[in-house]
C-alpha cells in the first residue's frame, strides 16, 4: 500500500464497521438496561437468587431527669470488622501454605512416617491466621495487642456468616478516627457502626437507671416484609434492671431492616433490595433530680448505705441512691467480666434503697406515738419520768447512750430520742395498735414503685406472726423492742421515705413513682387522714423539728433558713460477723409547707464501725436538703409559707 492511498475509502472495511457498530450498540444497550430498567432486573434477580432478611434494632429511647438532663442516652459503637466472604481466597491460600509447611516440617522430623493431619483443625487455624494478620494491622495502628479466638470465629461462622466478623469492638472515637485514616485503601477491614447505651453520670443512680443486656430474640420484625425469608438479627438490647427494665417496652425502638440478595455461597450480592430505616424508641422522663442524686452519693462516698428523697405532694422520687454502686458504662456495650466480678464481690448489684431490709430503729418512734395518741393512750404534753433503764418483767431495757433524761414529754422524747419514754408509750398502747398503725402507713407491703425487684418480705411483727414463726406467744419485752423500732421489724429506706412523706401531708399513704409528670396533676395517694388532732400533730412534728435543732440528735441535718422536721435512728443488727450498727435519718422540709421527704440509712459493715444516725446519716440528708433548696429563690420559699 502506498502513501497516496490514504485519502481513499476502502469498501472492504464496511463489514468491519457493521460488526463494530453492533458491538458498541450491544454495550450501550447493556448499560441502559442495567441503569434504566433496574426494577425489571430486580424481579429477575428475585427469581434466580436467594434473599436474606437482616433485622436492625431501632435505637433505644433516652432517659432524662425531671429537669430534662439526659441520664441515659446512646452513643455510637464502632467496631473494626471484616466480611468473611471477601477473604475466601485468602483462607484457601493460607490453608494450602499451612498444609505444605506442616508437611515439610513433618518429613524433616520424621522422614519415614506418613504425614497425617486434622483438616478441620487446619482450616480453622488458617482462617484464624488470616484474621490475625488483619487484626495485627489494627494493633499496629492503635498500639494494642488483641488476639483472634478460634472459638469466637467458629461461633460466628456457624450462626452469623452473613454478618461482619468483629476484629475489635467498642472503638473509642480516637481509635475510630485513626483507623478511618490509617487503614490502607482497599483494605477489607471495614468500620461497622451500631449503638451502645451511654451513661454520662457513670455510676450515679446505677441501680435506679439499670443496665441493658444483648438479646438476639427480642426484636420486633413485624414491620419488615419477607417473614418467609431466612432472617438474621443484629444484636438488640433489653433492659435488665432499673428504669431500663421497667420501661423496656417504651424505650425499645422500632426495628428496621434490609433484604439482601445472596449468592450460592450465602454471601451478599449487590445492594439491598429493601431498606427500611429503624426508628428510635420513646424517651422516659424520670422523677429523679440528678443534682440531688449527685449530692447524696457524694456524701455517702465509699460507705455502704442508701438514700431516698420523695417529693411530698406528688410522691415522685427525687433521689434513689444505693452504695456501693457500679459504673454503668462498664456494662455497655457488654458487661465486662472484671466489672461484674467487682460488683459481685462488693455486693454492688443490690439496690439497698428498695431491696434492703433494715430495722428502722428510732425513726419508727413516730408510729408508736401516733398509735398511742390515736387510741388515747398518750397525751403528748404529759410528762413521763425517764431514767437510764426501764424494767419490763425481769428484764431491764436501757436508755440509749446510758443517759437519763428525767422528765420527758413527746417533744423532748423525739428531740432526745428517749427509748425509755417510748417503752412506756408502746407498752401502754400495746403491740396490736402499733402493728396496725405501721400497717396503716404501709410498712408491711411494697410501695409499688416501677423500679423492679422491690423487696416483698418486709416485716411488721404481730402476735399472730410471732406465734406462726416461733410457736411462742408475744411478751411485753417484744412490744418494748418494737416501740423503738427494733426487734423483728424490717423495712426498706423507700418505705420509710414514703411514710415520712405521708406523715408530712398528714395522711397515711404515699403513692411513690419514678416517673415525672410535667403537668403536676393532683395525685390520689390512696391513704386516709392520719387521725390526730391538730394539737397532737403539732406536738409530734414539733418534736421532730426540735430533733433537727442544735440540741437535737439530728443537728447535722440542719440547713440555714430551712425548717426541717426529722428523726435519727441507730439500730443494732445481728450479723454472722457480730453486731453491726445501722444509722438512720428520716425527715421532711420545710415544716410549714412540706416539699421533700428524705430517708437515709447507712450500714456498718463490721462490728467496729461506729455509725450513729445523727453523725453518719444526717449529713447525707443535709446534702440533699441543701441541693434541693439551693436553686429555690427567696420568693419560692416565701410562697411556700403562704
Amino acid at each position: 500500500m502506498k502513501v497516496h492511498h490514504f485519502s481513499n475509502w476502502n469498501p472492504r472495511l464496511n463489514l468491519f464497521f457493521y460488526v463494530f457498530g453492533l458491538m458498541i450498540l450491544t454495550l450501550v444497550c447493556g448499560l441502559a438496561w442495567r441503569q434504566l430498567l433496574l426494577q425489571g432486573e430486580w424481579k429477575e434477580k428475585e427469581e434466580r437468587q436467594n434473599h436474606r432478611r437482616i433485622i436492625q434494632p431501632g435505637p433505644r429511647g433516652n432517659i432524662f431527669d425531671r429537669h430534662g438532663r439526659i441520664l441515659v442516652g446512646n452513643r455510637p459503637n464502632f467496631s473494626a470488622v471484616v466480611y468473611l466472604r471477601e477473604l475466601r481466597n485468602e483462607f484457601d491460600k493460607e490453608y494450602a501454605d499451612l498444609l505444605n509447611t506442616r508437611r515439610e516440617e513433618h518429613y524433616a522430623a520424621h522422614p519415614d512416617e506418613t504425614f497425617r493431619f486434622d483438616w478441620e483443625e487446619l482450616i480453622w487455624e488458617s482462617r484464624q491466621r488470616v484474621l490475625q494478620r488483619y487484626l495485627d494491622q489494627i494493633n499496629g495502628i492503635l498500639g494494642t495487642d488483641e488476639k483472634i479466638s478460634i472459638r469466637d470465629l467458629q461461633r460466628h461462622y456457624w450462626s452469623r456468616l452473613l454478618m461482619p466478623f468483629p476484629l475489635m469492638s467498642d472503638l473509642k472515637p480516637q481509635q475510630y478516627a485513626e483507623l478511618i485514616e490509617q487503614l490502607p485503601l482497599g483494605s477489607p477491614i471495614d468500620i461497622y457502626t451500631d449503638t451502645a447505651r451511654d451513661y454520662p453520670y457513670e455510676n450515679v443512680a446505677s441501680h435506679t437507671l439499670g443496665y441493658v443486656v444483648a438479646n438476639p430474640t427480642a426484636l420486633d420484625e413485624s414491620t419488615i416484609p419477607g417473614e418467609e425469608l431466612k432472617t438474621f438479627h443484629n444484636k438488640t438490647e433489653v433492659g435488665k434492671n432499673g428504669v431500663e427494665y421497667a420501661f423496656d417496652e417504651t424505650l425499645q425502638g422500632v426495628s428496621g431492616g434490609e433484604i439482601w440478595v445472596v449468592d450460592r455461597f450465602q454471601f451478599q450480592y449487590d445492594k439491598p433490595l429493601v431498606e427500611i430505616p429503624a426508628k428510635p424508641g420513646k424517651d422516659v422522663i424520670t422523677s429523679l433530680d440528678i443534682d440531688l442524686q449527685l449530692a447524696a452519693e457524694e456524701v455517702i462516698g465509699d460507705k455502704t448505705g442508701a438514700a431516698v428523697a420523695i417529693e411530698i405532694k406528688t410522691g415522685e422520687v427525687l433521689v434513689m441512691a444505693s452504695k456501693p454502686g457500679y459504673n454503668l458504662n462498664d456494662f455497655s456495650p457488654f458487661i465486662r467480666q472484671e466489672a461484674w466480678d467487682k460488683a459481685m464481690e462488693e455486693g454492688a448489684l443490690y439496690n439497698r434503697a428498695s431491696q434492703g431490709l433494715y430495722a428502722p430503729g428510732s425513726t419508727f418512734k413516730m408510729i408508736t406515738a401516733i398509735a398511742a395518741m390515736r387510741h388515747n393512750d398518750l397525751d403528748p404534753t404529759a410528762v413521763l419520768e425517764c431514767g437510764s433503764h426501764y424494767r419490763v418483767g425481769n428484764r431491764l431495757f436501757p436508755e440509749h447512750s446510758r443517759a437519763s433524761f428525767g422528765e420527758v414529754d413527746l417533744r423532748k422524747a423525739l428531740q432526745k430520742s428517749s427509748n425509755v419514754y417510748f417503752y412506756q408509750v408502746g407498752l401502754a398502747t400495746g403491740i396490736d395498735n402499733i402493728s396496725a398503725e405501721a400497717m396503716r402507713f404501709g410498712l408491711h407491703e411494697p410501695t409499688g414503685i416501677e423500679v423492679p425487684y422491690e423487696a416483698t418480705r418486709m416485716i411488721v411483727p404481730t402476735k399472730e406472726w410471732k406465734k406462726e414463726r416461733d410457736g411462742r406467744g408475744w411478751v411485753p419485752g417484744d412490744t418494748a423492742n418494737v416501740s423503738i423500732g427494733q426487734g423483728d421489724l424490717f423495712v426498706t429506706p423507700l418505705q420509710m421515705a414514703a411514710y415520712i412523706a405521708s406523715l408530712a401531708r398528714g395522711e397515711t399513704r404515699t403513692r411513690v413513682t419514678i416517673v415525672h409528670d410535667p403537668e403536676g396533676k393532683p395525685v390520689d395517694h390512696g391513704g386516709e387522714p392520719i387521725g390526730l388532732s391538730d394539737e397532737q400533730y403539732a406536738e409530734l412534728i414539733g418534736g421532730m423539728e426540735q430533733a433537727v435543732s442544735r440540741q437535737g440528735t439530728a443537728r447535722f441535718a440542719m440547713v440555714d433558713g430551712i425548717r426541717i422536721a426529722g428523726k435519727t435512728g441507730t439500730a443494732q443488727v445481728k450479723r454472722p460477723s457480730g453486731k453491726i450498727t445501722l444509722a438512720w435519718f428520716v425527715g421532711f422540709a420545710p415544716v410549714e409547707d412540706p416539699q421533700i421527704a428524705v430517708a437515709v440509712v447507712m450500714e456498718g459493715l463490721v462490728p467496729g464501725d461506729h455509725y450513729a444516725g445523727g453523725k453518719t446519716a444526717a449529713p447525707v440528708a443535709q446534702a440533699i436538703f441543701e441541693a434541693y433548696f439551693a436553686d429555690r429563690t427567696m420568693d419560692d420559699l416565701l410562697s411556700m409559707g403562704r
Partner: protein
Amino acid sequence: MEINLRWWILALCNLLLFWLQGMVGDATGALGLTLSVNALYVIMPAVCLSQGWGLVLMFLAGLSVDAGLPIGFGFHAVMFAVALTVLHAYQRSLQKAGLGQLIALTIGLNIIFQLVEAVLLAGPLSSYGEYWLRIGSDLVASTLATGLVGWWFLSLEHWLLTITGQEMAEPENV
C-alpha cells in the same frame, strides 16, 4: 526483526499525544470532564507496524499511561495490546482505508475503551447516578475530541511517515 524508523516515528507521536492528553486533562479536569483519546495510540501502529513491534509499542504506551495512576499496572497496556491484535488481523484492509474510515474506526475503538474502563473501574461507584452521568458526558466529549484530534493526529503521523519516506505497510510481517 530490526527497529525501523516507522516504529520510532509512531513512538514519538504517541509520546506527543501522551503529553498533550496530560495537558488537556489538566485543563478540562476542573470542569468535571475527561477527554480520552486512547484509541489514537493504537490505530496507526495497528495499520503500519508488524504485530510484534506493535505490541511492544502498545506496552510502552499502556505502561506510560498506567505508571502514574492508582490502577493495576498494565491495565491499559493489556487493553491496547488486545485491541492492536484484533485490528492487526485487518491490517491489509486498514492499509487501504481512507482517513475518514480510520477516524471512524478510532472513534468506535475509543468508545469501546471508555465503556470497558467504565465497567471495570467502576467498583462501588456503579450504583451512583452521577457516575453514569459523568461517563456519558466523558463519552460524548471524548468522541468529539477523537474526531477532531484524530483528524489532526492521524494526518500528522501520515505526513511524518511520508516525509521520512516510509510506506504505511511493512515490507514483511513478523
